[in-house]
């Protein structure tokens, strides 16, 4: 599944992240455990939590990130 399809409060491990320099620099990479905080309406971004950081990722980009749900 892609990250944008993720459910709120569910944890995911990122499997395949696109090669985007800012995404990489901000530390969003394969193997990272994230949880979905919320999604913004009318095509807005998804907000994920990585440890104690909150990161907003554009819908178009989040649709390219594959992720696997974890318990």
């Amino acid at each position, binding site marked *: 599944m892609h990250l944008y399809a993720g459910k709120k409060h569910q944890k995911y491990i990122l499997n395949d992240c696109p090669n985007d320099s*800012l995404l990489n620099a901000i*530390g969003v990479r394969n193997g990272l455990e994230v949880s979905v905080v*919320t999604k913004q309406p009318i095509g807005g971004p998804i*907000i994920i939590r990585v440890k104690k950081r909150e990161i907003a990722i554009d819908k178009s980009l989040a649709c390219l990130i594959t992720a696997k749900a974890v318990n």
Partner: protein
Amino acid sequence: MDCHQTKPLGNRPEGIKRILLMGNPNVGKSVIFNRLTGLDVVTANYTGTTVTYHEGLVRFQGNQALLIDVPGIYGLNAQSKAEEVAVEMLNSGADLIVCVLDATHLERNLHLAFDLQTYDIPTLYVLNLSDVAKRKGITIDVHLLSKYLNAPVFETVAVKNIGIDILKESLFKPHPVKPALKILDRHEKSQEITENVTQEHDVEIGFLERLSEWCIKPRTGIPILIIVLLAALGIIVGGGKGLRALILLPLVNNYYIPFMTNLIEGIIPESVFRNVLVGEFGVLIKVIEWPFALILPYVFLFYVVFSFLEDSGYLPRLGVLMDGIFRKIGLPGNNIIPFILGYGCAVPAILGTRASGSRRERIIVVSLISIAVPCTAQTGAFITLLGDRSIFALAFVYFISFLTILLAGLLLNRLLKGKSRPLILELPNLLMPDFKTLSKKIWIKMKHFIYEAQVPMFLGILLAAFLVETGMMNTIGTFLEPLVVGWLDLPKEASLSLILGVVRRELAVMPLLEMNLTTVQLITGSVVALFYLPCISVFVILVKEFKVKIALLIALSTFVLAFAMGGIVQILLNLVM
């Protein structure tokens, strides 16, 4: 209000130690810079506040060093304007790097630290925001981190001036170049270091953490936005009216004006010269009354509200919340920050767009700000002019402004080639702003306003007094009659607003105060002033940033739009009222 220095890179006074202050965006570099140098560069709680670099001298026991505040970057790939500046800075040589690390986001911050180690420059580290880390239950073993990095690490809370003195002293001690860490995988290495030096305790989620989450969830974020907007309006409009009515107007009307009028009338006999000084547009009267008694309270309260929001970290959350709407006009949501800055002054707003990435985005933001965003001084003038007559008239003018921003944004998004880049934004910690830092910031902004506004305001009023008292205004009024009277349905003397509006935006509004206008005429005059030309400082910045062609195109669009919208609004309102 040019808050940012731009000097040629590599400027290096002889014999002075050159220190680069570097780090990820929004880790508090500019606050540390201000604390170490005693200077006042602009700071805020969001990324990209430092769009160029600042330099200042650090003094300690008779020694001095040149400290350079480099824009915040995540790495050294030179993929953004800020990274280009940073790489150029490093290549032009330095005696020491001070790398600032955010104690709440250590793992991510270490990537840049590893990048910097590849340069053979002595480096020391500052672990800032350690108070916020503690609040979040994060404790970092500074000694162990120092061992890992093979360099000194200083713990600071820059906004509270904690740890700054020891840091300052260490800048003047010798620091040898240390060999770079051998790293196979930087992600693994940063993870390993962070896990070993960090202890995380479970802490009860505090109010600010809860509020942070409420601000970004649409169901709670939108009501919070409405509350913030209403509170901001209440403080600026209500508070400003109160300050004016209770303190400033009585001081000016009861003491200053009678004193100045009596003084001049006692010295200078009845003449055109005396009228230029204390007549209808008397320069000695209006130069105090307009900026200080009528506009200053609103400007002051705007900056109180704005600086609070800026330092709290609320604005990036608002950007995330508004991203969907902003996409419709071709902009990622974080462009809301230069927009809101534009309601203060367009100059820092235009400079702030340097952090926003593509030229396409910059042109859209800058055009919309120049066309339809009134600056704080003009807002003050609108509240004075319209707020006293009808709050609906004031709301109507702002409605026209928002509508134009939306329509012009949709149009520019279609006309300009290319796509907006996707939004990737790390949200800063939501903080309760530090009172001292906030007061200083407001004071700096007020000083800027007074210095920037006073000379053009004085010259503008002098010109108005001269034109009115010599009768020249009558001739100009007759010349502009078809436009001002025929099309805009304003009195002939309203031509004065068009002349003064060239100097400053609020000066296109203030002369209307002195005329006995109907509500429709007040609205028409305000709509024309809203769109009219960008002020001289804005025009100069547009030329510097985008060249003459685009600056002229923006100025021409605003000029044509001012008369088109003024005329249409006048016709429609006269039909229904």
